[in-house]
């Protein structure tokens, strides 16, 4: 009974001590957030070289010269903004690619307005993306680009590469869903019976705030409660606060998604899983993944709760490429781009892989695809 009383007293004392500390930290928040914080995102210098409607094409020049001759085009998702790839100077995928000698172009999809509600996936893939790539061809006097697609942007890149294989030299996809018929991710489950027609008829474009709410709902314990508790705990650590504010700036900067694009994405991909079955059509043209014959490097996160490994990994099996490989990183959906561990792996691995293919070392080395039996490592937890 004494042991129990001791434990009880210690627990209450710990709780009171922690509460007092938390209260003290809470009192300091206004003072710290009132200071001038260095929380700029997307700080790497770039120039806008092409604009069309709401779309802008950013061009970053490698400071130490170009080591990879073929220009590299980064296609981000329509959900959230591409600034995540350049969140802070020491955690920037863009900087990593530049340091690896890539000449980087990146599409900024801008902020869709009501008038953009009729734009379909075809308008983004065979319209904007194709015109941007044509522009890069003319500017760089080349006829191919290396493509990197992030999340939904990766799915778009897969579609583009399947429809225009001659224009893509190498394809890199990162946390890009291809196999939508999985029950591993909550998003995949929720989307199955979503009345997307009703949503679009009522709202038009899908509001970014609505999508944010959905993403937070995927794991409120971590994304709403623990995250802000950590912030309170670390309020005296200015570097932590600045990184936190940067992430907040990015997360809650969500443009709306054009209505028809979202409708098609949900219906054709999430609900009917047409892409992986080579039955998806863009403006009457069938997207056949077997036409992806260029080298493919496919990244995904082992702990990704939004796009689980099962949704990404099958790309290499379904593509027609003889040089395709999966890379599973021990991180989550966002961690691939912002965690310090993944920073050392993600961009350097891409530039190394591109350089190897550029030098032709492995371009004719036979089938590099792992045997079909090999399955993606299961997500932990």
């Amino acid at each position, binding site marked *: 009974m004494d042991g129990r009383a001791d434990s009880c007293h210690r627990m209450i004392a710990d709780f009171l001590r922690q509460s007092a500390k938390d209260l003290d930290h809470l009192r300091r928040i206004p003072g710290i957030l009132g200071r001038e914080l260095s929380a700029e995102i997307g700080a790497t210098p770039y120039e806008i070289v092409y604009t069309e409607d709401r779309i802008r094409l950013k061009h970053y020049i490698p400071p130490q010269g170009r080591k990879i001759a073929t220009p590299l085009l980064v296609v981000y998702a329509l959900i959230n903004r591409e600034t995540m790839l350049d969140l802070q100077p020491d955690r920037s995928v863009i900087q990593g690619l530049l340091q690896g000698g890539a000449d980087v172009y990146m599409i900024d999809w801008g902020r869709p307005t009501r008038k953009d509600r*009729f734009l379909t996936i075809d308008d983004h893939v065979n319209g904007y993306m194709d015109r941007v790539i044509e522009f890069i061809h003319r500017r760089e006097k080349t006829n191919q680009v290396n493509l990197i697609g992030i999340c939904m942007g990766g799915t778009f890149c897969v579609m583009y590469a399947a429809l225009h294989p001659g224009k893509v030299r190498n394809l890199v996809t990162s946390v890009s869903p291809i196999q939508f018929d999985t029950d591993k991710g909550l998003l995949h*489950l929720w989307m199955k019976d979503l*009345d997307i027609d009703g949503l679009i008829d009522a*709202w*038009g474009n899908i509001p970014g705030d609505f999508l944010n709410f959905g993403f937070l709902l995927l*794991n409120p314990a971590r994304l709403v409660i623990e995250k802000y*508790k950590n912030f309170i705990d670390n309020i005296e650590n200015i570097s932590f606060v600045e990184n936190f504010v940067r992430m907040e700036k990015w997360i809650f900067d969500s443009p709306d998604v054009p209505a028809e694009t979202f409708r098609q994405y949900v219906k054709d991909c999430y609900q009917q899983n047409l892409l992986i079955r080579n039955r998806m059509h863009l403006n009457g043209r069938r997207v056949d993944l077997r036409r992806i014959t260029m080298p493919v490097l496919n990244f995904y996160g082992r702990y990704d709760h939004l796009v689980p490994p099962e949704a990404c990994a099958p790309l290499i099996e379904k593509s027609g490429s003889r040089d395709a490989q999966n890379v599973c990183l021990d991180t989550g959906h966002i961690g691939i781009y912002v965690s310090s561990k993944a920073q050392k792996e993600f961009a350097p691995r891409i530039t190394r892989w591109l350089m190897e293919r550029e030098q032709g070392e492995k371009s004719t080395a036979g089938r590099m695809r792992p045997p079909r039996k090999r399955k993606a490592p299961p997500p932990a937890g």
Partner: protein
Amino acid sequence: MNKPLREKPQSRKKKPQNSVAGDSLPDMMKELEDLRQRFFLEQRETFDRFVASGPGACCHDDPCTEVRNRWQNFVRDELLHGFLVTPVGPLRQYHEKFNRLMEAFAEWEAACQVFITLMTHSMTLSLADLQEKIRDRLSAGRPVDDLFPQWVRLFEDRSLALFRSAEFMAAMHKALKTKTALVKAQEELMEDVLKVAHIPTLSEMDDISRDVYLLKKRIETLEKAMKDRHGRTR
């Protein structure tokens, strides 16, 4: 478009004949006294359940459901009942639209309540789990520390299990469905207001946007065809 007369909601229970107070003043006073006692008794029972200690203290889903049902009955039977009469006269169509908005709001509110209750339920269950854990540890004389991380883990487990359940998905889809119905009802009414003020409505703007979009597509196709034709003739 003619809306039939709204039926009396089924849930409105008729008072049993034997419970009707007599006409005399003492009978009415007695009825009032009974009502007052029932009211305080219910309050006290609810309060007792809230302050009860132990894991059961958190599992107060019954009062939540009860409160929610009572509120919904009140909205439907008392509040809306006064508004939702069959519209007649020259302003009938506006009245109908207003009625649709009111009904959509009531349905959305009810669906939201179910959704929010489900959400908070996983939190209350995780708190009950934590209480259980604390009790076990105290019984074993083991130290109880890191309460917050433990609770976050428990809450995560509970909520992720909930989010995969058919019950949650049905509640979420209903909340979304009623929300879209509400937005549409608001929009219908707003269109009338904008028309009166000679301001273009959203549907009119959408029509223009669609025309511009289709025209751009046609121009693209024509330009491409012309380019191909020039290429062939050269």
